[in-house]
């Protein structure tokens, strides 16, 4: 599987995984100038932006570790962009990460939900 296929598969797996956990999926692949948000969902009155990280090879670290500071900043700005372009959203929101490891045949070895994985940077 190439990178795109791994990513696509991961996003499909993540959607099923989140639905089972009561996430109501509002939108997938929200794009803006700052980047993309894989899944936008709502659960218990909270708006949740989900970044899906899928890895088929752990030589360069776990899926969780693959999110850089720069990516975190982009996720926050993209979330802000989503908030600014949509009406009637709940005021509570957070950014979760779904980390997925698959083997070479595309079977899931590990899938984990990290709630509130990305918090806005504190000012100095």
């Amino acid at each position, binding site marked *: 599987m190439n990178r795109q296929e791994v990513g696509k598969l991961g996003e499909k797996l993540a959607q099923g995984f989140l639905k089972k956990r009561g996430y109501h999926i509002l939108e997938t692949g929200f794009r803006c100038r700052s980047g993309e948000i894989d899944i936008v969902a709502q659960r218990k009155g909270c708006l949740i932006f989900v970044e899906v990280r899928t890895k088929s090879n752990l030589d360069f670290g776990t899926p969780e570790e693959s999110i850089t500071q720069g990516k975190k900043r982009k996720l926050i*700005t993209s979330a802000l962009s989503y908030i600014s372009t949509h009406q009637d959203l709940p005021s509570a929101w957070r950014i979760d990460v779904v980390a997925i490891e698959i083997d070479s045949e595309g079977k899931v070895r590990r899938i984990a939900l990290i709630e509130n994985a990305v918090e806005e940077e504190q*000012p100095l």
Partner: protein
Amino acid sequence: MEPPNLKHEDELKLQGYQFIAGIDEAGRGALAGPVVAGAVILPQGHLSWFRLVRDSKQLSPRKREILFDLIQNQAMAVGAGVVSHKVIDKVNILEATKLAMMQAVEKLPRQPQFLLIDRLTLPRCSISQEGITRGDKLCLSIACASIVAKVTRDHIMEQFDKVYPGYGLARHKGYGTKEHISCLQKLGPTAIHRLSFAPVKNVITNPGCDNLKSK
């Protein structure tokens, strides 16, 4: 340090003040262009973007623009005051800043009952007020006002950059960066430079100083 919050506003609301405006300024230290003040009355309740608000200097330009739009669309009232370089040269920057703040308050479509102001107070304004040191970092309404002031001023400077090209005004917005000072020395001041400010004054009284330095 904690991000800006609504503690000051909530306390004033307990005292019976309903409409509380935050006030802040941008461009006080710049060598060219106006000083701009923003005034913001936030809506009741808590909105999703509140927790991303910081004082304008701590935000990326992109975030600042998105927050600016959110404030414009969702605040109860927004006002901006712009005071030109000419007035700054005539009355001094502190008085010009206060003037811009007064204008920003007057531009508010709804009259506030209390003003929370970054650092200063406005003695000539009859509305109850408090000057808060580091207010732009502590108080959410003032932080929002700082975004309104900064983005409004940046947009003005981007327009001035088209009228006075070659100085990089769209980049440094008139602040005294190395690039700006060297342009000033090469090209001299434009019609929007603050002649009362030392770095600009030095260029006029000492026009050839960059040649001397290069030797």
